[in-house]
């Protein structure tokens, strides 16, 4: 492998880009972390303490909201993947209606999350289109509770609908890099549909699957807009809880603790998915 010479000038050229990231993102993450321990606090006096952390972990509502957001994050990312992967496979192969389907699927990309949430609400609310249709057809006697439900199905449906095209883009480019010859070779050597899918497509698309799962998790886990419209009344999502803590209760340091938890969870899930991918593909 050829190694290119990197001069000190090259590093200098990096300063505007990297410097910005370090200065603004780095410093705000740093302050969030210190604030969660009471240092550099904007409210009250600045003093090192672990009281904020203790308080959050003794607060049932905070714990519930962490678990709830975790659940929504995981189910949304897995759900989106389950819907997107077959579509991506279909689009790779082509066939009738490929162009139409491809453009149809991109529509949600142009709709902001909050608008998307309201659109879906029309469909799945207590007196929404789906319920009214089911009632009219006599399939159900009483409207189904699909919105603001305790489990969070409404949120998951909106997350999946909204993020499908985004995940599809990532998966499609991942699948496009798989050569047709590779698939033919597998079939020629005796692989049926199932084997081709799980021994060739999935492992080879794993980088894309991984990236889309992680990005989807981060979006859904920290989501504010969709949760506030379609989420259950209790528990609030972690982002909602954080907003309440900071602005309603004026407890900025405790909000910082929740912020740190969001960051740490995201990092942990990223790590977990990578391990999972290694396990599935059997390589490092």
């Amino acid at each position, binding site marked *: 492998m050829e190694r290119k010479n990197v001069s000190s000038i090259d590093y200098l050229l990096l300063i505007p880009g990297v410097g910005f990231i370090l200065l603004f993102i780095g410093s705000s993450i740093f302050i969030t972390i210190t604030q969660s321990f009471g240092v550099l606090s904007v409210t009250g006096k600045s003093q090192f303490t672990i009281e904020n952390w203790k308080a959050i972990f003794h607060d049932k509502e905070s714990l519930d909201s962490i678990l709830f957001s975790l659940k929504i994050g995981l189910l949304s990312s897995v759900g989106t993947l389950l819907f997107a992967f077959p579509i991506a496979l279909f689009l790779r192969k082509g066939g009738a209606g490929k162009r139409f389907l491809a453009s149809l699927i991109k529509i949600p990309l142009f709709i902001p999350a909050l608008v998307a949430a309201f659109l879906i609400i029309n469909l799945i609310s207590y007196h929404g289109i789906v319920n009214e249709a089911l009632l009219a057809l006599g399939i159900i006697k009483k409207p189904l509770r699909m919105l603001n439900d305790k489990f969070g199905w409404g949120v998951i449906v909106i997350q999946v609908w909204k993020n499908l095209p985004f995940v599809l883009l990532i998966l499609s480019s991942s699948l496009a890099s798989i050569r047709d010859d*590779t698939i*033919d070779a597998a079939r020629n*050597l*005796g692989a049926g549909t199932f084997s081709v899918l799980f021994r060739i497509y999935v492992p080879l698309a794993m980088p894309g699957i991984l990236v889309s799962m992680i990005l989807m998790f981060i979006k859904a886990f920290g989501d504010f807009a969709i949760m506030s419209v379609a989420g259950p009344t209790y528990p609030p999502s972690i982002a909602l809880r954080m907003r309440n803590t900071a602005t309603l209760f004026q407890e900025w340091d405790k909000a910082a603790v929740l912020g740190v938890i969001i960051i740490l969870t995201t990092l942990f899930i990223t790590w977990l998915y990578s391990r999972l991918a290694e396990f599935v593909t059997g390589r490092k």
Partner: protein
Amino acid sequence: MVYGTLFSDPGENYKTLDIGREIMSRLILKDLVKKFDNVAAVNHVRLEVEEGEFVTLLGPSGCGKTTTLRTIAGFYQPDEGEIYFNDKLMNNIPPAKRNTSMCFQSYALFPHMNVWDNIAFGLKMRKIPQPEQKKRVAQALEMMSLSGMEKRMPGQLSGGQQQRVALARAIVTQPDILLFDEPLSNLDAKLRVQVRVEIKEMQKRLGITSIYVTHDQDEALAISDRIVVMNQGQIEQVGDPQSIYLHPMTSFVAGFIGLANILSGQVVARKENQVQLELPFGRFWAFAGGLRASVGDTVRFSFRPENVVQYREGGPNKVSVTIQHAIFMGDAIDLFLDAKGTRLRARAESTAKLKPGDLAVFSIDETAFQFLE
């Protein structure tokens, strides 16, 4: 590891292999038609390949040779006609169940599997028990001089090594038929010549019926038991390499394989086994072979450049020419001649002193004329 040593010790390497086996397959294509958007890529192809035979489909790109191969493998469904392996109709058998092995131009190794897993893939799919798998993969590795590379990923291998992994992966499953889709076109010229001999030797020892697709006539001549020359979806001629080269039956075959002077002229006389042909640059005697034409008919024929040589006392069919180009090739001089406005290709020995513009006398071997359909 030197590629050249690959099969240099035939007896020893092959004795331990039970990859070659008695069950072999005849391949029969009956009136095969494959259309794409209503255009026939393969147009009524009829072919029988004997057990253990090495048959090459040769032709320019777009002639239908690869489509034929992929239809045999099952990647395409024929629109008409039948494919038989021995007596078994294969038309509706999916590729995974056909027990063919294909070597791809791109090698098509699985990039996420190491060498061992690549070779073992077909055995895993066939649910061969683990110990048997290990034994067979180890044998294939040894046969292809790949021992010690089991853990390498395809990306870490050279083109030649990838080729060997692809071959190992193809033979380890004991296929009924081996299919080659231009497997050598990604190798450099020297390696290509070496590997084609090795593929041929391997095939003969294992005795697996093989179909080989190439556009390279040298490769086809070197490697095949029989050559099927294809053009525009149809078979032009089938024969062993010698007869294809020496006795082309159509102008396409004459022109595609080797160099040829393809001309037409009128039969002006006939005696015993010879005909006299009228050409713009003179009258020439030629052996008629099976030619049925009678005096007055116009016929098409070809002769090779190596049959047009400098005239010597008593030589046949004299023709006066002007040298247009003389290209020194090392082992011979390639000549472009002008015979009263007709361009002829000819050969001269590499020691000959011929320059463009020279006037010279050449002679055409009367046995060299091949009459075309």
